């Protein structure tokens, strides 16, 4: 049996969250217009990342995040102190970002596959510098990431949102349900359908992009 088969035979079949994603919720006092600058500071990166994965376009992502923060500010300014105290800031900001994204994509053309890769070759280079990869492997790697990005962009928006939150951001089903304002069962079904479609699109390339000696989810197996 190959190394890949191991995870579902043992008892510890768990996903390892990507190391680059941190879900720690910055501790804010009660959110409001007076501390909005630090809210922007804390969340702009992850909301931008989310919007970028959803649109495949840097300009769109930037404008979406700007618009989302403006809406959040206006909404916060209208809330009374109790509503602010009870607000779950992080999922709320994601929900707003997703709504802005939806509106924007709806009023725009049907989603284009991005022509220029979002995968920044420099970032990849930095990431892999210390590894054994040769330059040509890095180029291959960047090309592979473009394939993955393009496959993600081919999903219908609701499935793309589920897949992005689940696998790229490593969020739990209940967290995604809260952000998308959907029952958990719907979230699971969307994740499932997204993976099915991605499997169809990426098919034979998956084995190459995700080599059998990869780290990640087998790591926790003892």
């Amino acid at each position, binding site marked *: 049996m190959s190394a890949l088969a191991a995870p*579902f035979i043992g008892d510890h079949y*768990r996903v390892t969250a990507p190391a680059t994603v941190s879900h720690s919720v910055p501790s804010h006092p009660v959110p409001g217009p007076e501390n909005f600058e630090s809210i922007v500071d804390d969340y702009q990166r992850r909301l931008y*990342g989310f919007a970028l994965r959803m649109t495949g376009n840097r300009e769109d992502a930037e404008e979406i995040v700007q618009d989302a923060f403006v809406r959040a500010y206006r909404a916060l*300014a209208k809330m009374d102190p109790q509503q602010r105290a009870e607000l779950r800031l992080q999922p709320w900001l994601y929900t707003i970002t997703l709504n802005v994204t939806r509106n924007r994509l709806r009023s725009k053309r049907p989603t284009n596959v991005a022509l220029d890769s979002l995968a920044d070759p420099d*970032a990849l280079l930095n990431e892999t510098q210390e590894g054994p990869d040769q330059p040509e492997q890095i180029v291959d790697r960047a090309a592979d990431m473009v394939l993955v990005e393009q496959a993600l962009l081919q999903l219908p928006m609701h499935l793309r949102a589920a897949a992005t939150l689940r696998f790229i951001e490593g969020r739990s089903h209940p967290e995604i349900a809260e952000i998308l304002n959907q029952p958990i069962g719907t979230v699971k079904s969307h994740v499932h359908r997204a993976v099915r479609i991605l499997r169809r699109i990426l098919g034979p390339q998956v084995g190459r992009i995700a080599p059998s000696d990869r780290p990640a989810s087998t790591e926790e197996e003892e």
Partner: protein
Amino acid sequence: MRCCDVERLWDEMREGVEPQREHVLAHLRGCPECQEIYRENEGIAYCLTCLPPVEPPLRMVGKILDHIKVAVKIVAPDSITTVDSPIGRLYVAFRHSGITAVALDRGEGDEAVLAKLQRRLGRGLIPSQAPQWVADTVARFFRTHQGDLEKVDISELTPFEQSALKAAAEIPPGEVRSYRWIAEKLGQPSAARAVGRAMARNPVPLLYPCHRVVDSSGALHQYAYGVDVKARILELEGYHPVRR
């Protein structure tokens, strides 16, 4: 357990909390097709986690905050025009509710004056032709030395600034009063300095006659366009200040 159910439970199995776990595992041990699907799904999940993190553009935070400032306070710009007067060319900003600012042309150039006024008003200014009522209001002031306050809008000033300017407007042309006089009139005799600040921040000089407010000694003290201009305006009104 059927293959389609096993496939559907893949993501829950990764969470490690699936109650039917043992059944799924038993099925997997005997079903190479489902093993292959799980393997491929793991590959898909891995591919997605491999996408490099994205960095937002530099200065995005600043842009977002600017965006909020603009969007939250969307204020229609005022219009601005120029009107000739006995003391020189005047810039006059106005909106439908009245004249909002007056500035004397001191030769700094249109751009510099507009920039200063925009900062003072906190909104944009669009150059336009002087409507008749604006030209008439200015002309009437130099004819009668009385500002038509119906045609002036100071509603965006603080209540104290508004009261101080209204008190100043009660000083008859050809006469002067002290800062303290206004402070007393407002019922705040110790607020002479605050009155001074309100006069200094007067956006509509002439029409609200802050030039008629002087030191308690009678000295002209200060004026946005210089004490000489203050003296010239007072002379036009028939008051002859003591030159020191």
